[in-house]
């Protein structure tokens, strides 16, 4: 079994252990630990002093913050140094900082548990560990100097005694390799226990990932709105105006003119283009959703679904935009699935908010047997919901009915939604 760290090295046969680099590595590690500890003490004391002197100005505060963050620096050094006595790398527990600038970095670091654990380690290092390190290293140097140096400084002793002492230094020094390595190993294990990433660091990372996914949804949402605006203000306007001009031109033509045929054809094309742009916009960004919210938009989806759809929505006003758009597309895809695969004669969609979760249920009286695998669209639907931490459950026994239940947590509204102005209650039937 290959040895991975200083503590394991202690289990080697003495000859092997003494021939290995572990005692030397341990010694270097402990010397470094002593130096790092004293540097930390000096640095922090200096920062606190400067901070205290300048505490009326921002620099003072910055020094205090720097003191708190000294742990981050110390821990980074410690992770590097630990390679000396432990071949297993110690991973960095910090999250990557995505926001630029010092403020962004501070905002992330000061909110991390790991930062505070590292500060704890730095405190322990400065107050206890570095003194122990220096004690051990000092003891080694003292022993080496007193024994091997004996022939040179014990001038009033007989040479035989001096040489005997120097000779005794050899086993003594060899024996010292064990406590040095043991302390180095134990100390590294302690550091590892404090500094290793914890499960909730990972949780924090998960939360961050979730947040960034939600941000992505928001970014897509903004982009969709921009596309919709551009289409509306550009191509759509011009097509409408062109259509008017063509209509006016037709009026000017004498009846039965050969040019009329071409104009009629041109108008037909213009109308088709307008219809296409309209459908495109509906797919990109449903206008009613922005203006009136989920219940109204679901009503529009129901009205273009080729089978009767019963709607029951009771929502507490508008929901956050990202949630609305996700829920909307979930309904669109679910109803498209019903139309394509189920052979149903009717369907129903209900939406409620219960205990901070939006619950959508899409039922149909079709043949059932919907399978999440394959091109059933259920996977895409689950993907959409998953982005916002939502879940999708399907009950679809052979012979039907199929019930699709989508639950998505309602995120705290980060933007004030447009005031719901509605001339109609959210309860609609289609």
């Amino acid at each position: 079994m290959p040895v991975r760290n200083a503590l394991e090295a202690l289990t080697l046969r003495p000859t092997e252990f003494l021939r290995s680099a572990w005692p030397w590595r341990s010694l270097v590690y402990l010397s470094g630990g002593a130096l790092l500890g004293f540097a930390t003490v000096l640095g922090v004391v200096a920062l606190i002093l400067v901070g205290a002197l300048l505490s009326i100005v921002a620099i003072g505060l910055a020094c205090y913050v720097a003191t708190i963050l000294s742990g981050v620096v110390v821990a980074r050094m410690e992770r590097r140094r630990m390679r000396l006595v432990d071949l297993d790398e110690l991973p960095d527990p910090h999250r990557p900082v995505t926001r630029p600038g010092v403020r962004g970095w501070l905002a992330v670091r000061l909110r991390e548990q790991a930062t505070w654990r590292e500060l704890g380690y730095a405190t322990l290092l400065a107050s206890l560990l570095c003194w122990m390190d220096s004690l051990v290293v000092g003891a080694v140097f003292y022993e080496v100097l007193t024994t091997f140096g004996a022939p040179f400084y014990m001038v009033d002793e007989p040479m035989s005694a001096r040489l005997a002492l120097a000779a005794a230094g050899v086993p003594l020094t060899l024996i010292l390799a064990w406590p040095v390595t043991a302390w180095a190993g134990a100390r590294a294990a302690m550091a590892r226990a404090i500094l290793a990433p914890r499960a909730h660091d990972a949780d924090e990372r998960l939360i961050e990932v979730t947040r960034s996914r939600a941000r992505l949804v928001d970014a897509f949402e903004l982009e969709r709105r921009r596309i919709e605006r551009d289409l509306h203000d550009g191509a759509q306007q011009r097509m409408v105006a062109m259509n008017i001009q063509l209509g006016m031109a037709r009026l000017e033509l004498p009846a039965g003119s050969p040019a009329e045929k071409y104009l009629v054809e041109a108008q037909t094309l213009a109308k088709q283009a307008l219809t296409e742009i309209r459908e495109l916009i509906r797919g990109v960004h449903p206008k009613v959703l922005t203006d009136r919210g989920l219940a109204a938009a679901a009503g529009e989806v129901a009205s273009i679904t080729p089978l009767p759809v019963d709607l029951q929505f009771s929502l507490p006003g508008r929901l956050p935009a990202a949630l609305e758009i996700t829920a909307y597309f979930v309904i669109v895809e679910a109803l498209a699935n019903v139309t394509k695969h189920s052979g149903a004669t009717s369907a129903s969609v209900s939406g409620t908010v219960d205990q901070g979760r939006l619950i959508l249920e899409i039922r149909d009286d079709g043949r059932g047997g919907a399978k999440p695998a394959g091109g059933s669209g259920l996977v895409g639907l689950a993907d959409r919901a998953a982005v916002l931490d939502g879940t999708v459950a399907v009950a679809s026994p052979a012979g039907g009915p199929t019930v699709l239940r989508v639950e998505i947590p309602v995120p705290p509204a980060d933007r004030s939604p447009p005031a719901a102005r509605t001339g109609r209650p959210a309860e609609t039937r289609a």
Partner: protein
Amino acid sequence: MSGGLRVVIAEDGVIVREGVAGMLRKFGHEVVAAVGDADELRVAVAEHKPDVVVTDVRMPPGFSDEGLQAAIALRAEDPELPVLVLSQYVEQTYASELLDSGPGAGVGYLLKERIGEVTDFVEALVAVAGGRTVVDPEVVRQLLNRRRDPLNRLTAREREVLGLMAEGRSNTGIARGLRVSEAAVAKHINSLLTKLDLPPDSDDHRRVRAVLAYLRG
């Protein structure tokens, strides 16, 4: 009827606004104001007291549905004010809100592509100014699409007639559209009103509203 209506146009796209204005002038109507946002629309209506308002749904500053909201607000102040709303969207949500404003008379909801059918469009404007209700065929098609059971009891011809009724056409208009006699149209109408449990009404317009109310569920 073309006694020359006094029209206020609200539309944020300059090319469309000018296109519509030019077209209406050509038909002998007077465009007393052509404005680009909802606030200007309110001012223009207060100042000019037009015979009819033509407005786009979305307008600055928010580009959501300011035009529609302005139209509804104007009709709340003056239920008699005829308003024709032009939209890029089939969405019946907007059409429904408009139909619910005021007494539901003298309103129109048309898709912008309908403007290209110049003669029909101007006729629709005159009809709205005359207190009738006009709904875009595309919106009506969506409403009919909801396929409630009683609708299944209608014959194909009756469904056609129902659709044309919902668009706000008179018996004469329906007869022309389907190339049948007015007597035949009246027969279809009576038959379908009975099947749908709607009150038979000799007044064209009230009947249109009953049909729309039915279709909107």
